[in-house]
């Protein structure tokens, strides 16, 4: 029998936030993403450098140390194209440290859309182009082929799994959400409904969210969480099952949970504790699928994400502003691509990043729970306004430089 394994998967992403782009900029100034205010929350370079210091540099150093110290330790990363573009420009040492991790052979890169977009739900062609772009970029930078797919925000349904199966991926990731799993546990590999050769890994959200969301919450009854306590929980969850899938944002380490919460020390202690038992190991996502036959078939006809208590897409596509914004951006697809204007196409794709729609979410805002709202803007209405102004300018460029499209959408 194979060993009991933890599949640790971390998602690395930064969007290109739109600056406070006004209607007076549209058709005049085509810069949407470079904020002149050096310390604005929408200044992408400022944010990247800040998070690099707090999270990417110390966490990569720690991962490197763990890989050296523990031959069993492995990790999987999804690194978005928009993040790679930013570190290439502003923090090349961070990119180098990711390359060193991958070069160990024990760090797997997970496939996704280059632009962290929701294109799957709007344009299958554009979606595939972005997946291919991302595979190509990973090949160039790291010299590896991606084999397992994750969609933006872990947004998953049966037809996505069928697409990934046809495309040749060996695995796909999704949320291990109770209403779907029913009596089953997320601690096995499953087979998605209607597929032949692809394995489904489901996030163990309780154990994942203990770290990602609750770790530093002092009003949590389990605070402070120690490596001992967490190891007991993992033991209690896995019992005689093969897998614990811990999926979370990479920025959990150092950014969502700051260094002074003890997250790095906790991580190091927990890794050491887990591999000290000879029955235990870590798997990359591919290895987890290779090592385990599917325990059954799982069907998710409706889209499930890893967000909020609803686990649906309402944080991105829950109100009319979000729908309008996405409709505008995707309706330009053919006109944009025909131009062969690389800068224009790149700007258009950067506007597809799901974060833009997230900033327009009103579902917490109206309740006055503005603290739940994680955004560089002071309101979802501001977010929408700047975004729409940028869309207008994209239309103007199409119209003015390429004689296509209309200014009124």
């Amino acid at each position, binding site marked *: 029998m194979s060993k009991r394994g933890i599949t640790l998967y971390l998602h690395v992403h930064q969007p290109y936030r739109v600056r406070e782009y006004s*209607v*007076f900029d549209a058709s005049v100034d085509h810069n949407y993403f470079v904020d002149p205010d050096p310390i604005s929350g929408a200044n992408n370079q400022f944010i990247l450098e800040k998070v690099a210091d707090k999270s990417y540099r110390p966490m990569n150093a720690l991962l490197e140390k763990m890989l050296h110290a523990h031959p069993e330790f492995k990790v999987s990363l999804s690194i978005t194209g928009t993040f790679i573009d930013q570190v290439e420009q502003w923090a090349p040492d961070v990119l180098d440290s990711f390359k060193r991790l991958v070069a160990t052979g024990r760090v797997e890169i997970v496939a996704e859309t280059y632009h962290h977009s929701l294109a799957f739900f709007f344009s299958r062609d554009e979606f595939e182009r972005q997946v291919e772009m991302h595979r190509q970029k990973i090949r160039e930078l790291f010299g590896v082929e991606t084999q397992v797919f994750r969609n933006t925000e872990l947004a998953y349904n049966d037809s996505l799994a069928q697409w990934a199966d046809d495309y040749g991926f060996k695995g796909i990731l999704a949320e291990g959400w109770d209403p779907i799993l029913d009596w089953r546990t997320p601690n096995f590999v499953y087979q998605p409904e209607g597929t032949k050769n692809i394995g489904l890994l489901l996030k163990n959200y309780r154990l994942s969210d203990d770290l990602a969301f609750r770790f530093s919450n002092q009003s949590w009854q389990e605070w402070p969480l120690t490596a001992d306590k967490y190891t007991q929980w993992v033991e209690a969850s896995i019992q005689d099952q093969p897998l614990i899938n811990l999926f979370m944002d990479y920025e959990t380490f150092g950014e969502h949970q700051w260094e002074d919460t003890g997250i790095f020390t906790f991580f190091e202690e927990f890794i050491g504790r887990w591999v000290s038992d000879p029955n235990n190991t870590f798997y990359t996502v591919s290895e987890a699928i290779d090592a385990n036959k599917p325990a059954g078939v799982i069907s998710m006809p409706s889209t499930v994400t890893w967000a909020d208590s609803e686990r649906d897409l309402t944080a991105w596509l829950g*109100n*009319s502003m979000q729908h309008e914004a996405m409709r505008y951006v995707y309706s330009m697809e053919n006109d944009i691509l025909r131009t062969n204007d690389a800068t224009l196409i790149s700007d258009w794709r950067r506007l597809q990043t799901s974060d833009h729609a997230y900033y327009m979410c009103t579902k917490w*805002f109206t309740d006055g729970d503005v603290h739940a709202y994680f955004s560089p803007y002071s*309101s*979802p*209405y501001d977010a*929408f*306004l700047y975004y729409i102004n940028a869309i207008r300018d994209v239309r103007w460029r199409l119209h003015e430089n390429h004689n296509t499209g209309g200014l009124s959408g």
Partner: protein
Amino acid sequence: MLGWELPPHNSGGLGVACYHLSKALALKGVAIDFVVPYEAEHEGIDFMNIHAATPLSPIHKNGMGAYDSAFTLQTEKEGKVAPSDLKDIRGVQRRYTTYVEQLVKKEKYDAIHAHDWLTMEAGMRAKELTDLPLIVHVHATEFDRAGGNSGNPIVHEIEYQGLMMADRIVAVSSITRQIIIDKYGIPADKVEVLYNAIDVTSFDDGYDYDRRTYKYLEGLKQEGYTIISAVTRFTIQKGLAHLVRAVAKASHKYDRIALLLAGDGEQRDELIALAADLGISDKVFFTGFVRGKQWRDAYSVSDVFVLSSVSEPFGLTALEAAHHDNALIITNSSGVGEVLNSIFRYDFWDENRLADQIVGIATSPALKESLRKNVQNEYARLSWHDVAETCLNVYKRPRLEVYA
């Protein structure tokens, strides 16, 4: 309770706020004697005793000092020459104070609640005579009325005295509270915030929007125009010149925009000239002073309500506009913004930002609908019942302990 106006004899929000606060307090069992400086019928007010401190008729013009510091009276009771001591507002205030002195000697009260500088002297005098706790309620300071300057030094001095003498101070927003602390040097723990609210049931009077009132604007709406409105007095405090300039800037980007300016005031001619200078006279509609149906129809015809004030302690009109289904744009220096989330905000001088917000709303149905719909869940949460509850707590603990 010492006030200066009550509906229907009010010329602005002060009377409305006093009316609703008193009514909600009365429902909680508070017995109120409310003193006004004029003599008139107040139909429908049976929940408290109204005392007329002078025989003057209700004066609408300029609100007799509630909204600016013009010291000369404009109107007098028909057919009667006013007694010489009632020719200016100081004279009226002296009469008012004398009346209050006699009232507090005659009747027994638990507290004196004085509204704004107009009645502060009477409040202080009542406290001197009876040693009753004095609660000063600040709806606006002289800084607000003067559009950010220190304004009339006499008014400022009366406010300073009143705020110093008060046992407790309630301010209609955090912005106003901060002015009281910063500009008048009042200790922070003596001042608390008591927001205004809106009584939505007072709007359920069988009103139906009449499309004929602003028929031309309705015609523009049919052609796809978005109607921006401000319902206010045309004074420097209200920042309307910035609004007119922003509308001009916005219409260069998107021309299906019209501005409805409902109200009147000293800046009217200046605003008309400004619209002409900017070449948008055909897009700016001046109604003059509106009341009753015309007033409500102004809200109803409008899509977007702008509260453009340079300094606005609260800004009840924004809640009224929300009740009539408007999207709201509010300056950062308006108190009502503190109780709403689903709105656009801007700095009163930032014409580009305001223009951007106007164009955004005018060109995006989703944005307009989201703002309109979501603010509905917010404005109605503010109830006079809750305001009265907070006010009662102030009455119950009127004197802050002083620790040596």
